[in-house]
């Protein structure tokens, strides 16, 4: 059995760990509120953008010659996956969930004999994927310096994706991120952004629009923007999810530490009592023998 002194030290160390996790939880909670707010504020833009594109793609007269970003290259040989994770750890299953989702997709792609290319956004995803899929990762981006998700960063990723698409490096692009539902639930998502997948979505109206300049020109200008917008949306959802996930992970850690402190304190008191009893017995039996 551990000595009294050891127990005391352990209690102290667990307590200080608890303090840290508690502080991290508070910080995550504060950041979560901000991240959630900006995720909600960002939604109108991407929704409106989606709507406009939906209306436009319905208005495109010549489906055959529609921009490639909308209709695809006509084949599905090379897949590009943009895996978006966080730059920091200690956030529960946040990163692992995205990676798990992405990996099952990778396996499917490779089983079908297709080519796979990966872009990782955020260093944690890169760390986890490097071991198995190291040779597939073509680019690794990290926004450690930016405090909050901002459109400028998303635009950088978007431009890169489009550049690669125009160079013919891939046919299909999918982004992986966590959608924020609430603090406890984040749903890993795989969203195909190239070619744009509008199936199952009905246009809100069949009213015809006047276009200026014509549909094709607007579309070819708008689609690249939409890529950046979707990536930005994913980044916002991700940052809210990260904070939510971290908050609940740290909440659990704090609680576990509390339980551990209780258990250790009981053990400490027991062995202290045992020592006292032992001493008493010794004194009494010493007195009796006189």
């Amino acid at each position, binding site marked *: 059995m551990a000595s009294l002194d050891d127990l005391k030290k352990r209690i102290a160390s667990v307590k200080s760990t608890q303090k840290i996790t508690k502080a991290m939880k508070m910080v995550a909670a504060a950041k979560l509120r901000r991240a959630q707010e*900006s995720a909600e*504020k*960002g939604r*109108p*833009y*991407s929704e*409106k*953008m989606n*709507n*406009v594109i939906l*209306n*436009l793609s319905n208005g495109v007269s010549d489906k055959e010659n529609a921009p490639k970003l909308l209709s695809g290259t006509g084949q599905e040989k090379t897949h590009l996956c943009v895996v978006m994770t966080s730059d920091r750890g200690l956030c529960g299953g946040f990163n692992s969930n995205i990676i798990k989702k992405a990996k099952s997709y990778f396996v499917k792609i490779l089983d079908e004999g297709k080519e796979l290319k990966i872009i990782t956004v955020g260093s944690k995803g890169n760390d986890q994927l490097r071991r198995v899929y190291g040779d597939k990762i073509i680019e690794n981006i990290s926004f450690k310096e930016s405090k909050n998700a*901002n*459109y400028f960063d*998303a*635009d950088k990723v978007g431009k890169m994706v489009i550049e690669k698409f125009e160079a013919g490096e891939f046919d299909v692009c999918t982004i992986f991120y966590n959608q924020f539902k609430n603090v406890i639930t984040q749903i890993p998502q795989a969203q195909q952004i190239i070619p744009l997948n509008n199936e199952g979505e009905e246009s809100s*109206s069949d*009213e*015809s*629009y*006047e*276009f*200026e*300049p014509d549909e094709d*020109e*607007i579309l070819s*200008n*708008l689609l690249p*923007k939409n890529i950046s*917008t979707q990536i*930005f949306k994913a980044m916002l959802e991700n940052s809210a999810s990260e904070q939510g996930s971290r908050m609940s992970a740290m909440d659990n850690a704090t609680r576990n530490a509390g339980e551990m402190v209780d258990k250790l304190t009981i053990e400490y008191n027991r062995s202290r009592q045992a020592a006292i009893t032992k001493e008493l017995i010794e004194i009494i039996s010493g007195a009796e023998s006189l």
Partner: protein
Amino acid sequence: MSEEFKVEIVNPEKSFLVKDDVSEVVVPAFEGEMGILKDHISIISFLKPGIIKILSKSGDENYYIEDGIVEFKNNNLSILTSTIFNLADMDKSKQQDLLKQAEVEANRTDINDQSKYLADQKVEVLKTLN
């Protein structure tokens, strides 16, 4: 019948402005300035760098934008833009900064004609502000 309609400006970070007592909006569309009044036909158009003028009862407002899309439908005008500044909040130094940036962009030789045209537009608009 009132002659007012609703305008909403959104940028990627947030909903920038919502106003529902607007009588006229002038936007710098790709093929020239375009004034939009109530009951305009449904339209989607691209914007080039320029000034958005919003005329309403509660006062006129001017915004400088660098790009964007407008959608008008059922007397709802939505403007999507990634860069927008209220002219009233914009001081001279900010204008100079933007102008400098735009000039650098316009003088680059490795860009295509369209971006060059847009950059030139930016320079022009910003110059008229000063």
